[in-house]
């Protein structure tokens, strides 16, 4: 039970990152690896803010806003120019990889390579029906989950959310209807960055952070997206939770060393047996595909 809960909580984090990744991937077709850089960067903003004796809440807000800006920077300097040139996906991907390298190395140069922590000292634990939970461990996933829910509500309710979904399905139509694609894309990148920042802050508070945590987390998010299916936004969340549970089982019955291997075996299984994911609609097989 303990393992299941732990896996579930971990899974929410993967799922949230998966949703952030899918938000960009679904709407712009950009394979946004640099999201790993944004993830890595977010806790450092908070760290520096706290060093300047800024109140925690303000620090968090600041970190989220800056993460959003960095993510929008990726769109402005890389993906939007490439999109205008109608560059193929490979060019976007390589550009994103470049941006990731830049972000991570800047972090390492400014803040150093070593592992850092945010919280001082120990933590309160709760016991609930025999399951021991650490406050920070619960705090992060809950925060991430509420951020994802906010995003979902925003996606379905607000006008802009509807436009976003249309951008995913038919960008040319959106442009023809006179909607501003550019602003929409900025929102997509910004929100994606903010969402991973929420997850990153929660994780940083729980287990600490270093410049290199981002790529692996985003890879897990991608796996969550593929397992859950990239045609819906709920899919990646469920995919992430499944992934979290699987990984915790592997740790329990095998060894933590084989977590990643198990993850990618699961990915391979899904790609071969159900490439559209659990919740994916089966897309019409275009002959040019």
């Amino acid at each position: 039970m303990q393992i299941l809960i732990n896996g579930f909580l971990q899974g929410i984090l993967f799922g949230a990152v998966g949703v952030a990744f899918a938000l960009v991937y679904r709407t712009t077709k950009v394979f946004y690896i640099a999201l790993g850089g944004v993830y890595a960067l977010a806790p450092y903003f908070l760290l520096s803010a706290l060093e300047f004796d800024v109140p925690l809440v303000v620090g968090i807000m600041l970190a989220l806003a800056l993460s959003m800006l960095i993510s929008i920077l990726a769109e402005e300097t890389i993906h939007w120019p490439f999109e205008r040139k109608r560059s193929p996906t490979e060019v976007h991907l390589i550009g994103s990889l470049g941006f990731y390298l830049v972000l991570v190395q800047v972090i390492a140069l400014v803040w150093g390579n070593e592992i850092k922590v945010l919280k001082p000292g120990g933590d309160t634990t709760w016991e609930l029906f025999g399951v021991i939970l650490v406050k920070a461990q619960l705090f992060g996933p809950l925060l991430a989950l509420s951020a994802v829910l906010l995003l979902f509500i925003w996606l379905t309710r607000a006008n802009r959310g509807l436009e976003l979904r249309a951008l995913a399905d038919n960008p040319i139509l959106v442009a023809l209807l006179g909607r501003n694609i550019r602003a929409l894309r900025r929102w997509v990148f910004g929100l994606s960055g903010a969402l991973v920042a929420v997850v990153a802050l929660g994780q940083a508070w729980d287990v600490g952070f270093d410049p290199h945590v981002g790529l692996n987390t985003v890879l897990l998010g991608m796996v969550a997206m593929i397992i859950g299916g990239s045609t819906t936004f709920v899919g990646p969340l469920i995919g992430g939770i499944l992934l979290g549970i699987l990984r915790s089982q592997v740790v329990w019955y095998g060894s933590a060393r084989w977590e990643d291997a198990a993850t990618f075996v699961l990915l391979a299984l899904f790609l071969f047996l159900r490439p559209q994911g659990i919740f994916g609609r089966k897309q019409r097989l275009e002959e040019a595909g």
Partner: protein
Amino acid sequence: MNYLFHLLVYFEIYAIVALSLNLLIGYGGLLQIAHAAYYGVGAYAATLLWLNAGLGFFPGLLAGAATAALLSLLVSLPAWRFKGDYFVMISIAVQTLLYTVMYNWTSVTNGAFGISGIPRPELFGYNFVTTGSVSVLFAGIALVLAFILAILKWSPFGRALQAMRDDELAARSIGIPVEWLKLQAFAIASAMVGVAGGMYASYISYIDATSFSLDESILMLSMVIIGGTGNVRGPLVGAAVLILLPELLRFLALPDAVAANVRLLAYGLLLIIMMHVRPQGLAGTYRYQ
């Protein structure tokens, strides 16, 4: 003088890495990210055979190449079905899987501690002890492999690969067996990078898994993309840039830890700039379209 020979040896090893990766990226349009893993497979297989089975230098290298070629099925079979983003995912997954095995299969690879005491090359009773002699031997190997790749580029095999890269559907419609082609291209490229791995192990005389990580793969990819794809000159320029950049940074007298970060930062920036101004790389001919 010895220092120059040392650089030359590195250049020869990386030239093979870049040229073999170019066979996949530049000729085949297959964005392989698991190249460092196959580099590692070659290094480990050759090392284990040298140390435990008493194999000679060349038989060990060839066995390493064969192992890498065999394991290339892990990427080439999925490449039958997946292209673009999804193939990149698969390739990252394979990289992670092989790395996990190299890192965690302690009874064979000695895990994080690595394997030391790997013998320098030896041929007909002559020991290549000095760096200068190694650089001559490696130059010979690199030239032979480059020659093979040059013949292949101008052969019907190379033409068919190029056709597949330009338009896979059209290639199939004129009878080009694309699955078989991908299988062979991955096997050849992996075997060659496996040879490079064996050369590296024998020169450094020590290997551990961290030399074959995802970061290293990204570096190899950057090398080819920055240098340029689609011809022989491009990857060589890329390999030279990879070798010379740290040396240039040395003149700036940066501390070692910082220099490593600055180097990667430069790579990231170069990737982005390249994609903006010269998608075909410094000296390449092929650009994604």
